[in-house]
């Protein structure tokens, strides 16, 4: 089944997109939202469970205070109001991976509401309004065995792992984002990226999109240009990388437009995002009349954070992202363009950490935006998920600065790092990558190059120093790259009477 798509330009010519993002953040609390079970990722199935998170008859929830604290800090960082009094509510629906067949969530009394985030896109600031951020518990995880798709249809049987059931989530919901036009995909991506950076700075989540600790649902609708009514929306679930957020928005815009152009009407439904093919497919129909029969959770008392506590938590917030960028730009001596590129590549935090680990700002920027960005793109992953850490980059750069590596050799060290061969030092040793600084070995190689390229050598003797490059190349080839090109040049010029 292939959807008909309209070109992006044609979409923009006829329609205004309305965008909405719901982002679920899995908190990194040591225990679950309503019980004392551990939350460690990747444990054996159903080993981090108890009567409460399994929904056994009689078991009761108790609110995790640390999760409430994280929720409030997220809310404050998003410029939200913090409720003086709010309750949990039950969201009732049946699903096998939901132990109680209701999710303990918040309904009309979210703990955080009415905030905003200023998002930078191509040097412009776009304000995304936050409707609410509320606390809830995660569900278990179903594994559908047999069948071709891994989905429940066609599966022979299904297994459920309840380790994830009850892990605290904060759901952050934007108001409809209007007027984004052609920038809708970029704004969606930038919002999620900036939100992730904020979550990292707050230290409240592992913030790993690839592990599902941040999950984005993308709501999108199109309205005819100039219309003041919103169109029918689709909700693309679980878009799990920044690049996919952008692609999913773009795809849905093009798909919606094709249907609307053909005189069709949109079905309000959820969509599945397919990372591999970059398309969405139909999920389940979702009408506004979906009835979850919300009511206040009678097993929990209201959450009433004191104003003193809220102010105390406000004091623990990390620096405002916009101010922080301005400060870093000055500290690092980046041009506007360099800073913008760094932010756009999702590398601000990486560069910052690399500098903190000892690298010079320009060197840190060069690696992340050059070599590593290229590799991440080839591997089709986000830079942050590529598999090289800021500390490793700083260690590689330290070796370069010490004259033990050149850039070309450093690239081979990155190969080793991605392959998990150890620290940069270990990789240099194991792969035999260190630069040869022994003048004896170099001198012999230079002599060989001069002998083999007599015509070039003559030109240099005649003063055409620029021709030295060819000889340097020959020497580097013989040394298999493990030579300091600067020293080679010096030796060549010396031997040919130009030093």
């Amino acid at each position, binding site marked *: 089944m292939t959807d008909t798509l309209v070109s992006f330009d044609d979409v923009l010519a006829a329609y205004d997109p309305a965008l909405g993002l719901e982002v679920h953040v899995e908190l990194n609390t040591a225990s679950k939202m309503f019980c004392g079970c551990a939350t460690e990722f990747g444990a054996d199935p159903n080993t981090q469970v108890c009567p409460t998170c399994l929904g056994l*008859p009689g078991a009761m929830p108790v609110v995790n205070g640390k999760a409430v604290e994280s929720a409030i800090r997220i809310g404050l960082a998003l410029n939200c109001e913090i409720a003086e009094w709010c309750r949990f509510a039950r969201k009732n629906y049946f699903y096998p991976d939901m*132990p109680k067949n209701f999710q303990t969530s918040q309904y009309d009394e979210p703990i955080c509401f009415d905030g905003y985030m200023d998002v930078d896109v191509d040097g412009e600031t776009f304000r995304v309004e936050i409707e609410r951020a509320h606390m809830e518990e995660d569900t278990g995880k179903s594994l559908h065995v047999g069948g071709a798709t891994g989905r429940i249809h066609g599966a022979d049987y299904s297994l459920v792992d309840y380790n994830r059931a009850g892990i605290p989530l904060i759901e952050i919901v934007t108001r409809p984002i209007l007027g984004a036009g052609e920038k809708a995909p970029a704004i969606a991506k930038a919002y999620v990226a900036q939100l992730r950076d904020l979550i990292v700075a707050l230290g409240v989540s592992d913030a790993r999109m690839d592990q599902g600790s941040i999950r984005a649902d993308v709501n999108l609708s199109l309205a005819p240009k100039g219309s003041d009514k919103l169109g029918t929306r689709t909700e693309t679930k679980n878009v799990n990388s920044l690049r996919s957020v952008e692609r999913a928005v773009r795809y849905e815009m093009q798909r919606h437009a094709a249907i609307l152009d053909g005189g069709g009407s949109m079905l309000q439904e959820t969509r599945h995002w397919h990372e591999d093919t970059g398309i969405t497919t139909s999920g389940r129909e979702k009408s506004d009349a979906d009835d979850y029969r919300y009511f206040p959770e009678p097993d*929990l008392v209201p959450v009433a954070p004191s104003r003193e506590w809220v102010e105390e938590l406000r004091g623990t917030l990390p620096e405002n992202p916009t101010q922080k960028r301005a400060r870093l730009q000055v500290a690092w001596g980046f041009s506007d363009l360099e800073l913008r590129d760094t932010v756009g590549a999702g590398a601000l935090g990486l560069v910052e950490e690399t500098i903190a680990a000892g690298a010079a700002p320009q060197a840190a920027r060069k690696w992340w935006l050059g070599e590593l960005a290229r590799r991440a793109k080839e591997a089709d992953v986000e830079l942050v998920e590529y598999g090289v850490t800021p500390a490793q980059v700083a260690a590689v750069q330290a070796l370069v600065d010490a004259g033990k590596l050149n850039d070309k050799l450093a690239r081979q060290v990155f190969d080793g790092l991605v392959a998990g061969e150890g620290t940069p030092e270990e990789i240099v040793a194991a792969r035999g990558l260190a630069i040869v600084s022994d003048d004896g070995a170099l001198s012999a190689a230079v002599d060989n190059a001069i002998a083999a390229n007599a015509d070039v050598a003559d030109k240099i003797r005649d003063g055409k120093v620029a021709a030295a490059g060819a000889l340097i190349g020959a020497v580097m080839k013989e040394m298999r790259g493990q030579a300091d090109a600067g020293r080679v040049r010096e030796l060549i010029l010396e031997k040919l009477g130009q030093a």
Partner: protein
Amino acid sequence: MSDLTRRTAAELADALAAGETTSVELTQAHLDRIAAVDGDVHAFLHIDGEGALAQAAAADARRVDGKPASSLDGVPIAVKDVLATKGLPTTVGSKILEGWVPPYDATVVTRLREAGLPILGKTNMDEFAMGSSTEHSAYGPTHNPWDLSRIPGGSGGGSAAAVAAYEAPLAIGTDTGGSIRQPGAVTGTVGVKPTYGGVSRYGLVALANSLDQAGPVTRTVLDAALLHEIIGGHDPLDSTSADQPLPALVDAAREGASGDLTGVRIGVVKELGGEGYQPGVLARFQDTVDLMVGAGAEVVEVSCPTFVHALATYYLILPAEASSNLAKFDAMRYGLRVLPENIDSPSAEDVMRATRDAGFGDEVKRRIILGTYALSSGYYDAYYGQAQKVRTLVTRDFEAAFTQADVLISPTAPTTAFKLGEKLDDPLAMYLNDLATIPANLSGVPGISVPNGLADEDGLPSGIQILAPALADDRVYRVGAAVEALHVKAWGGPLLAQAPTLEGGAR
């Protein structure tokens, strides 16, 4: 006294302390009594003789060491099958949990174990505590020891009948709309619904979370106080449990036992009496009011006008909460699993549907449907939302009444025990049994039912209900013990002494 089963828990505790008997001996005596009469009464769904005797032996060992775990160490008890018991089946009276053995103990059960009370077994109840007669148990009804053709009340008919039939000196019940107090009234026993939050609900399989409360089922007020002090108090596993110490309940019961009510202001609730109440029940109630006046009480009539809406309010809140609570019974993780017929490879949803259809009884289904409807969007404000407002008004009525009186009184139930089957096809008639008990649950205040004599027209027990302000549970013990003492004086002994001897009994 030769028959250990006829003694009160306090007397048994004294006998144990004096070394006159052992826990093994008296636990065995109760197991024998169960073996003799429970075929007729059917108070128990599960009997754990082996476990009870092992706990009894441990209690005896503690006595020998001079280190009893509590005042009731070694005194056996029966537990309503709505509380999770590790290693013991817990069915909640439903087929849907047949065979389920919880991997954990309810906090109340943990406290009983820590206090050294051997658990004789699990008692019968209306399925998921929905009912006033125990006839809705999926495992057959319990019979009233006063007349085996009659109901023992409900939902905790099993616990009340076990105590009334001398199968256990103590039992645990739960009270959502009267399920401790009404069975107490119709079996001539004592039942206490503590203040909401006074006893942990952790491990109590929820019927309606905002109404449920576990409490003592006993033959005397003092026994109830002793048991209440063991099971009550704050529990960090229950967020709704009150984080403050219990009042001195045993002291209050001992104080009340003098029978003196001088200076105590008693409020007779105008709305909980009159039409719909059996004449014999009202006559005995008036007798007791007269006795209280004679004992120095100041009796006033108080009006709680919103109580007339309590039943309707209750039947919106309870089904709403229950419909959500019961969603977890879906065959995925525990309990019954029924594969649908005529479906080759059923989906999870097909299995859920078939299991819930087969596993839930009609009354449960009725309330799930009612509750689902009441919570549905478009109806929520009119039903659940409105009910919560009335609930607030009921609480205000209580607050106003408690400015005029220290305790409020009424008949516990409008009638004596009716015949098994008599109201089974008329849910509304069944619901009316809880008319007088429901307001306390809506507001969270504590209440006790104390035996109140036999109705003239049928010679069956009736009860008097004493209600106190939230957290003032000591008042229900003080006044309850006084009423009990006045009755014993008037009747020459406890009401239960007038009960007929059961066929299998060794009385």
